[in-house]
Every structure is written in structure tokens, then in C-alpha cells.
């Protein structure tokens, strides 16, 4: 959507481009391109030259206009080891989610529903600073038992809406550790 | 030849290019937008005129868009009548723009390109409505014309904005009803091409669906045409809008919609349809009578010249409606003549009043004192338009009225004839109320006579001079244009 991207890219890197920087920049672009192109192929399902070319063009075009949107954290090639952490985290999260939902499901079918809950808003402080990490953390809170993240800021300060007093007890706790491991914090 | 589509394409491209040029280099090219608009309309008018001559000499043309033959593709179909309407619309828009081309300084800051773009789009929409041979395509053109009109009409203060929204609501319902009618026709015929539908409808017996479709479609068009009692949007919208806008739309919209009704009655629906629902057509004529009387009475109550003209317009719509549904060729001839005449005289009057508004900032009748002294040329043009509205020969308003009256007498519809006569008399009163102020009273403030901007006065004078010319050309118009259109129909 930016009209003159080459210029704005130059603006973003005011220092003299060293060969290494250049290399890393190209790799960056390449990774993004292949991510988008893969998505295209999945969506398109057409493997003829014309549509693949269209896909390549489209991916390049998106990189051109939306370069600045790509979160740097998504570029996994920088730290391959985190893939394993992600895998662990997702599994753990799924289990937690299922637990949360089972609890909720039970609550929903209770007769005296309000008697079993005591909503409150609690504040938390995490050591996470990376926006992506904070986001994952916030969404994980939302998905796990009895808590929804209300406000989050860049200093790692959270406020959380809880459905009963026990829900927030384990926070930030293990979740913070697991996420921190992914993002190296 | 490509003329039918070019007539529409020029204003369209004008609009795109105007917007693109205006924004591609702000400030520097602001001045170049007006020439773009004028030349786009000029080219369109030239195309329309050449097309008109062509059609007159070589017969009707059908232009296949995309090369697809009807009924599969969309086609433009131009006969002498629609070609003339194209000339009227494009030339009218051009003249009006020319006349008000000195006013951009009074328009909102920085919005001139948008104004001109919308102006061109509105014109193109009306041109398309006239030219297209496809009922659904007509709907889309109606919406192009309408959307740009809503925006244009909102220019002119809070009252205009509110009136414009009101128009939007009513107009959208009208267009939707039209679309619904098209749907009914599609159910019956499976086609969207006007001529194809006509062919199919003649081969199958008249069904409830066809009749309902006809009624709904007509209702939609009536709403868009401001037939009483669906008229309220018109005076509200046209009287509060900027003069450059009402000068464009007042002569154009209702007339083009009346033309669509004529077109539907003469080319799409079978001749026996009206007979099958004679109750409906007779209701239409009675409605026309009510519209004429009501328009006249409401015009009497107005203190503002532009509002007064708007209510006269409501009455004029009644003329056209009544003639179209009277059921004989004479009255239909009158309607067609009146479409042309009313376009010309409304343009004259709105140009004149627009000049007054631009000059004095308002159009209250009480402020007309001494206008003949302060704006003599403008008032002369206004007088010509007024005499034509009253129906004084040899102005064109007389001859269309003559045919309408003859048609009414032929059909034995004395009330319609009486309403016409009565509204003419009311018009005398209405206009001479203005003339008396303008002629017999001293101007409130001494000011110099008309500005010498020839480009402001020339269009007005030109169209005023055309009024008797059109009137005296009535015979030729009927012979060359109207009779071919009505041949075999009535």
C-alpha cells in the first residue's frame, strides 16, 4: 500500500549497507517470499506455470507493499532451536485449553451458575517484553481456564479478568517460562 | 460505428481523468480540471449530435457491447428519439457547466475536481439510461446517475444535506422497485434485453406476473420521476442545492425518467397490456391530474423562486405522465414533445435563477425587486422560459401542450385537459407575480447591470433563443423523430 517502497526501505536503513547486512536483508526477503508463496500454493492448488507465476508475482508484490508488517519474530531461521519449544508449548497449551473448557462446560450446566463464580480483575507483571511474546501470552491467558486478558502494555503489565479467585493463581508461572523460552527471553 | 458508446464514454473518462489529474499533482493542475470536464462534455455532445444526424439519415443503430449479440450481451439501441435525448442531455449538461464555470470559487475548498467528476458521472448516467437497450443495465445507469446526484445535491448547506438524504431514501426505493419489476419481467421472459422481452411478451399470453411487473416497474419510475404523491423529494432537493447542480439535474432527471416510461410503453410492453389493465392507466391519468393541480397549488404557496419552479416541475411531471398513459398517439406525441420542451425551458429557468442566486445569494420572490434593471439579460431569458412554461406560442411549451390537450380531448378526458388549462393559468399568475416585482419595483440596492461574463450569459441566451426554435420545429420533430418511434405501436 505504500507508494514508493524502495524509498521507504532506504529510509528504514539509514546506515551504510554492509555486505553482511545486505545478505541478511536478502535472506529476510527470501524467507518471507517463500512463506507467502507456500501459502499461495496451498490456497491455489493450481500448479501450472501461469498460476505459479501469478503467485510469485503476488508474493513479491505483498512483500513490496507490506514489508514493514512482517513481525521479525516469525523469521525462524535465526534460531532453529525454538521450533522444539514451540511444539512443546502448543502441546502444553492444548492440554490446558481442554482442561479449561472442561471446567467451563461443567460450570455452564450447573444450576446455580452464579454461586460458583466470583469475577474479578487482577493485575500481573511479567518479565516478557517482546511484543510477540506478550501477545502469545495474552492469547494463551484468554484461552486457558477462567481468565481473559484485558489490558496489556509493552512493559509487561497485564490486567486479567478472572471468573473465580483460583483461576489467576498459577499466572504468570509456567506459561511465562514456556513462552520466554520460545522467544529467548 | 462506435458513436453510441463514445457518447457515454467521454464523460466517464472525463470523470476518471479529472480525478486522476487533480490528485496526481495537487495545486498545479487544479485549473486544468475544468477544461477536461468541458471538453469531455463537448466531445460527448458532438458524438451525440453526429449520431443523431446519422440515425436520422440511416436509421436506428444497435451497438453490441463486448460484441455479444442480444439477448446474451448488453446492447445500446439508438433510434432518432433516443439520439435526440442524448443530444439534449449532453448539450444541456455542457451549457449548464459552461454557465456556472465561474462559480468554483463559491464551492467548497479543494472539492472542484470531485464536483466535476460527479457532474460528469451524473451526466454519463443519464446518457446511459437513454441509450441502453438492456433493462438491468438501465438500473445500473440509474444508480450511477443517482449516486452522483445525491452527492451533488448535498452541496448547499444543512438543508440540502438533509434533502439529499431524503432523496437518497426515496430514490433508492424507486430504483429498487424498478429492479423488482425487472425481476418479474425476467421471470416471465427469461431475458433482459428490451427488444427480446418485447418479442417474448407478444408471443405469450399476458400473465399476472407480467402485469405486476409492469405496475411495479412503473411505480419505481414514477418515484424517480417525482410523480405526485412521490414528489416531495424534488422540491426539497432541487431548491436547496447549489444552482450549478439544480441547473444540471432539474432539466435532466425527471425528463430522462419520463423518457424511460415512454420507451417502456412503446418498445418493451405489448400494446394490449395497457388495455388489459385499463384501470391502471386511467389511474395514472387521474394521478397526473392531481399532480398538475397539486403542483400548481403548492407552487402558489411558495415564497422562493426556486421552490416555486420545483413545484411547477411537479406539475410538468403530471403533464408527461398523463400524456404517456392517455392511450393515444397524439397524447404520447405530446408527452415526447413535452419531454424535450420541458428540458429546454427548465434549463433556461434554472440557469436564470441560478445566476440570480449566484449574484444575490438567494432567490426569494420578495427580493426580486427591480431585477429587470439589475439583471436585464438574465431576466429576458427567464421571461422566455416563463412564457414557454405558460404555453405561449411560438415557444415550445405551447406545442407540446397543444398535443397533450388534443390527446386528452381525443380520449375524452376533459378533466386532464381542464387541469392543463388551469395549470397554465396558474403559471401566468406565478410568473407575473415575479415579473411585477422585477419590473415595477425599484431595485433594493443600486447595482450595475448583468456582469459582462459572456460565458455566463451566452448559454442562457442560447437556450432561451432555442425555445421558440424548438417550438417552430415541432412539425419536423414529429415527422422525423416521434412518428418513427410510435410507428406500429399506437
Amino acid at each position, binding site marked *: 500500500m505504500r507508494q514508493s517502497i524502495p524509498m521507504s526501505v532506504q529510509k528504514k536503513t539509514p546506515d551504510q549497507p554492509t555486505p553482511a547486512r545486505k545478505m541478511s536483508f536478502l535472506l529476510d526477503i527470501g524467507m518471507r517470499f517463500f512463506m507467502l508463496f507456500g501459502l499461495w500454493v496451498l490456497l491455489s492448488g493450481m500448479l501450472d506455470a501461469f498460476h505459479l507465476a501469478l503467485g510469485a508475482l503476488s508474493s513479491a508484490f505483498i512483500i513490496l507493499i507490506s514489508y514493514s508488517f512482517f513481525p521479525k519474530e516469525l523469521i525462524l531461521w535465526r534460531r532453529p532451536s525454538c521450533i522444539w519449544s514451540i511444539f512443546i508449548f502448543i502441546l502444553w497449551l492444548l492440554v490446558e485449553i481442554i482442561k479449561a473448557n472442561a471446567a467451563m462446560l461443567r460450570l455452564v450446566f450447573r444450576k446455580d451458575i452464579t454461586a460458583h463464580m466470583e469475577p474479578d480483575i487482577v493485575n500481573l507483571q511479567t518479565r516478557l517484553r517482546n511484543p510477540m511474546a506478550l501477545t502469545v501470552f495474552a492469547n494463551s491467558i484468554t484461552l486457558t481456564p477462567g481468565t481473559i486478558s484485558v489490558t496489556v502494555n509493552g512493559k509487561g503489565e497485564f490486567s486479567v479478568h478472572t471468573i473465580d479467585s483460583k483461576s489467576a493463581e498459577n499466572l504468570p508461572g509456567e506459561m511465562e517460562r514456556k513462552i520466554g523460552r520460545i522467544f529467548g527471553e | 460505428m462506435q458513436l453510441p458508446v463514445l457518447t457515454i464514454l467521454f464523460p466517464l473518462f472525463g470523470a476518471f481523468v479529472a480525478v486522476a489529474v487533480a490528485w496526481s499533482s495537487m495545486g498545479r493542475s487544479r485549473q486544468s480540471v475544468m477544461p477536461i470536464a468541458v471538453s469531455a462534455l463537448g466531445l460527448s455532445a458532438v458524438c451525440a449530435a453526429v449520431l443523431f444526424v446519422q440515425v436520422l439519415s440511416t436509421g436506428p443503430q444497435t451497438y453490441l457491447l463486448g460484441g455479444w449479440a442480444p439477448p446474451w450481451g448488453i446492447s445500446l439501441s439508438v433510434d432518432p428519439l433516443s439520439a435526440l435525448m442524448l443530444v439534449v442531455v449532453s448539450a444541456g449538461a455542457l451549457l449548464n457547466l459552461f454557465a456556472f464555470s465561474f462559480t468554483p470559487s463559491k464551492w467548497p475548498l479543494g472539492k472542484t475536481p470531485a464536483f466535476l467528476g460527479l457532474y460528469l458521472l451524473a451526466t454519463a448516467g443519464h446518457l446511459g439510461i437513454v441509450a441502453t437497450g438492456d433493462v438491468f443495465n438501465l438500473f445500473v445507469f440509474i444508480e450511477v446517475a443517482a449516486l452522483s446526484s445525491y452527492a451533488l445535491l448535498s452541496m448547499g448547506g444543512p438543508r440540502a444535506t438533509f434533502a439529499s438524504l431524503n432523496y437518497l431514501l426515496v430514490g433508492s426505493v424507486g430504483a429498487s422497485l424498478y429492479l423488482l419489476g425487472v425481476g418479474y419481467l425476467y421471470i416471465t421472459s427469461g431475458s433482459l434485453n428490451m427488444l427480446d422481452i418485447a418479442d417474448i411478451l407478444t408471443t405469450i399470453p399476458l400473465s399476472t406476473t407480467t402485469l405486476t411487473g409492469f405496475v411495479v416497474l412503473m411505480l419505481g419510475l414514477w418515484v424517480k420521476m417525482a410523480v405526485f404523491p412521490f414528489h416531495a423529494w424534488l422540491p426539497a432537493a432541487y431548491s436547496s442545492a447549489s444552482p450549478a447542480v439544480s441547473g444540471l439535474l432539474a432539466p435532466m432527471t425527471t425528463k430522462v425518467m419520463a423518457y424511460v416510461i415512454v420507451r417502456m410503453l412503446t418498445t418493451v410492453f405489448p400494446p394490449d397490456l395497457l388495455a388489459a389493465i385499463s384501470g391502471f392507466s386511467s389511474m395514472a391519468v387521474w394521478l397526473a391530474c392531481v399532480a398538475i393541480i397539486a403542483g400548481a397549488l403548492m407552487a402558489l404557496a411558495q415564497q422562493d423562486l426556486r421552490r416555486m419552479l420545483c413545484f411547477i416541475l411537479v406539475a410538468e411531471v403530471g403533464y408527461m405522465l398523463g400524456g404517456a398513459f392517455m392511450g393515444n398517439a397524439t397524447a404520447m406525441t405530446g408527452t415526447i414533445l413535452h419531454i424535450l420542451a420541458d428540458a429546454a425551458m427548465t434549463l433556461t429557468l434554472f440557469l436564470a435563477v441560478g445566476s440570480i442566486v449566484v449574484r444575490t445569494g438567494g432567490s426569494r420572490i420578495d427580493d426580486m425587486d427591480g431585477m429587470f434593471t439589475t439583471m436585464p439579460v438574465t431576466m429576458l431569458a427567464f421571461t422566455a422560459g416563463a412564457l414557454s412554461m405558460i*404555453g*405561449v*406560442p411560438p415557444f415550445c411549451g405551447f406545442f407540446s401542450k397543444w398535443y397533450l*390537450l*388534443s390527446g386528452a380531448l381525443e380520449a375524452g378526458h376533459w378533466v386532464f385537459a381542464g387541469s392543463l388549462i388551469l395549470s397554465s393559468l396558474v403559471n401566468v399568475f406565478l410568473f407575473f407575480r415575479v415579473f411585477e416585482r422585477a*419590473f*415595477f419595483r425599484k431595485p433594493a440596492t443600486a447595482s450595475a447591470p448583468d456582469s459582462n461574463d459572456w460565458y455566463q450569459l451566452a448559454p442562457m441566451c442560447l437556450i432561451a433563443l432555442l425555445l421558440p426554435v424548438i417550438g*417552430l*420545429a415541432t412539425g419536423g420533430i414529429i415527422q422525423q423523430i416521434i412518428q418513427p418511434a410510435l410507428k406500429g405501436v399506437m
Partner: protein
Amino acid sequence: MLNPDSALPLIALLAPLSAIPGILFARGPNVREAFTFLAGFLLLGIIVLMLPDVLAGNTPEIVLFPVIPGAPIALRMDPAGMLFALVASVLWIITTAYAIGYMRSKQEQNQTRFYAFFAVSLFATMGAAMSANLLTLYLFYELLSFSTYPLVGHHQNDEAKRGARKYLTYLVATSIGLALPALLVTAMLSGTLDFGGAPLLAGKVGTSAGAVLLVAFLLGFAKAALMPVHGWLPAAMVAPTPVSALLHAVAVVKVGAFCAVRVVTEVFGMDLLSSLGLGAIITGLAAVTMLISSFTALTQDGLKRRLAFSTIGQLSYIVLGVGMLNTVAATGGILHIAMHAFGKITLFFCAGAIYVATGEKYISRMGGIGHRMPLTMLAFLIGSLAIIGVPPTGGFLSKWLLLNGSLQGDHWVLAGVLVISSLLNAAYFLPIVYKAWFCPPEEAQHAGPMREAPTWCLVPLLGTAALSVGVFFYQETLTTLASMAARL
């Protein structure tokens, strides 16, 4: 379509208009009025050029715009039209001269506009005279109404506004409300509106429909000022006197009377009217109008108003003439168009001259004015005699024919009305003359040395007075035209 012969009516029609550019763009008043004269002489020349042809029984014709089948905009010079055109064009020149004197000495405003609309009015009048059909006649009739409106309201004050409003209300309301529908019905019944063939409605209407149509036509053409649609005429006297003179003695009212003649002779035809027994409607309307207006005139103190009511009455002579449905009376009626014109214009000129010279408008204040303005009052006397119908003035000829016609048709009552009316004419004009010269010195408002109106005023009125007498002696052309018109 355009052979030089048949183009003459068109040229005649356009002649008055040819003055307008000159009038509008002239450098000074002299040049401006020169253009008017030029156009006037041009017009007269063309009319005279056509005269032998018409007298020989030809009718030059030209179709201009075929607007409506059976009713194109077309011109046609027949004897009735020729009579009217001749009178109007002669009097235009004289009136122009008079107007120069009047307007300049009164220092009227907006003289350019005045002359321009004057020319337009003449154009409309000539058009009406030469109309080849009812539609064309209607067209010029309406044009005349609207083009005289600024002349009637020339002074642009409240009085002028009231007069002009009344003027237009009567004329336009009747023409749109009555004449136009009648026109449409006629067109529908006959399929054509052309003059010169068989009467349009012959064999097409019954008594009641015919009666309705006839009344609609007679009252619709309200310029003929038949009662009850006469009220505009006195009101229009707010106009400057040249306007009153030409338009309200010659052009406007005569177009009305001319229309009535056309209605009787061309639309219905005398045969139809007499077979349906509708003549009584016309003569009845005319007779009533004649008597009432003459009595009313007696009571008027304003000179121009008295002249106005006199005009209403005199117009009825014309209508009465054609309404009696015999050739002699009709000849008299048509001839009265001319004869009354010369007489009445003289009277108006005199009224204007008196006003210019003394500022006097009221008859009661004109005692002894004959001593001060002897030539004017002499002309006034001649004009009065012409209106009364005393030889040797033209008025005698037309009235004589009218009387003869009424006797020939055994219309004893109408003959009586004619006589009574003429006596009333004498009763409201002669006392003025008498008072002007023979009122006792102690009652005279005016005395002293002779001081006539300016030459430009005086000469024209003497000219028309002379014409009033002259036509008595050189009557042949006019009488021939009238009788030709009546026989059609």
C-alpha cells in the same frame, strides 16, 4: 415554397422587427427613431405592393412552419387582412411621429424599450392580420398581449402595475381559458384550422355545442372587449398616450375585433350561424356592450377613460356588423375597423396633446381650451364626428352600411340600437367640443394666447383628422376590400 410573390407577407411580417436591432443599438435618439420610421415605411411599402394583387382577388400565401398537421404557422394576405394591415401600417408611421413629440416633451424614461416593444407589437399585429389559420392568429394574438404588457406598464409605478395586471389578467385568462380550448375543439372537429376554405365548423356542430364554442371564441378573444370581458381596456389607459392611441385604438382592440370577424366568417361561416340561429348571440352581446359602454362613457370625466369606453362601444359595431350575418352589414362592420381607427386615433392624439401642452386629463377642466389649442380641438371635433358617423367623415360610411345592413336583415331593434348609440356618441363627445370653445369665460379653466402642443404632436393629429375626412372622399379601396372580405 419561397417565390418572391408569396414571400411578401413574410417580409411584411418581419419589417417591424427589422427596426429592433437599430433601435437597441442606435447611438442616439434621432438615429433610433429613424430606424422606426424606416421600418414603418418599409412595411407600408410592402403592404401597398401587395394591394393590387389582393384587389385583383389573389391571396398571397406562405407556409412558414408546419408545426401541426392542418394548422401550420402560415401567412396569407386576404382582403380583410389587407384592410387591417393597411390601416395599421399607415397609422404606425403617424404614431411614431406623434410618439417622438409626446415622449420627448414628457421626457419619458426607457424610450428605447418603448420603441422596441412598439415594433414587436406591430409585428404581432401584422402577423394577426396576415394569419392564414386560426393557430397562427392565436399565436400572434398572444404575442401581442405579452409584448404590449411592458408598454402598458411603461411608467413602472403602482398605478401602471395595477393597470398592466388587469390588462394581462383579462387577456391571458380568456385566451388560455376560453379561446385555446375552443381552438382545440375546433381543430379536433374539423381536422384543420386553415382559413380560406369552407368554414371550419360547417356541418360539424349542433346548436348547443356551436353556441358554447361561439361564446368561448367571442369572449376568449377578449381584445374585442365585449362585455363582460371589457374591463381591461379602461385599465390599460395608464399607458403613455401613443400606446393608448395606436394599440388601444388600432392594434390591440382591432386584433380582437378582427378575430371576431374571423370567427364569424372563417370558423363558423355565416351560413352555419344563421342555420343554427346563433347570430343573435353575437348581436346580443354586441348590442348590450354598445349601449352600456356608451352610457358609461357619458359618466367618465377622464378624457382617456371616456375614449376607452367609447372604444368598447365602437368595437361592438364591428362585431355587430358581422353578427347580423348579411353582406352589407358585414361590409360595414369590417369597414368600421378602418374608419373607427382614423377617428379614434385622432381623439387619442388630441387627448395626449392636451396633456402634453396643459397637463390636463379631466374633461371638467377643459373649459375654454379651444382658444388655447384651436387646431387640436378642431381635430378633436373631426374625430368626434367620425366616431358619431357624421359626413363627411369615414365613420359615416361604415355606420351607413351597418344601418342599411340591419334594415336589410329586418333587425329593427339593432337598427334602433345603432341609432341610439350614435346619439350617445354625440352626447359624450360634442359637449367637450362645445365647452372647449363656448364655455362662459368665468368658467373657463383655460384662456390666453394660443399655445399648441409641440409640432411633432400636432402634425400627426392633424394628419389623422385629415385622413378621417379623406377616407370619405377616397373610399374606394377600403370599401372594396371590406366588401370583398364580407363576401368571403
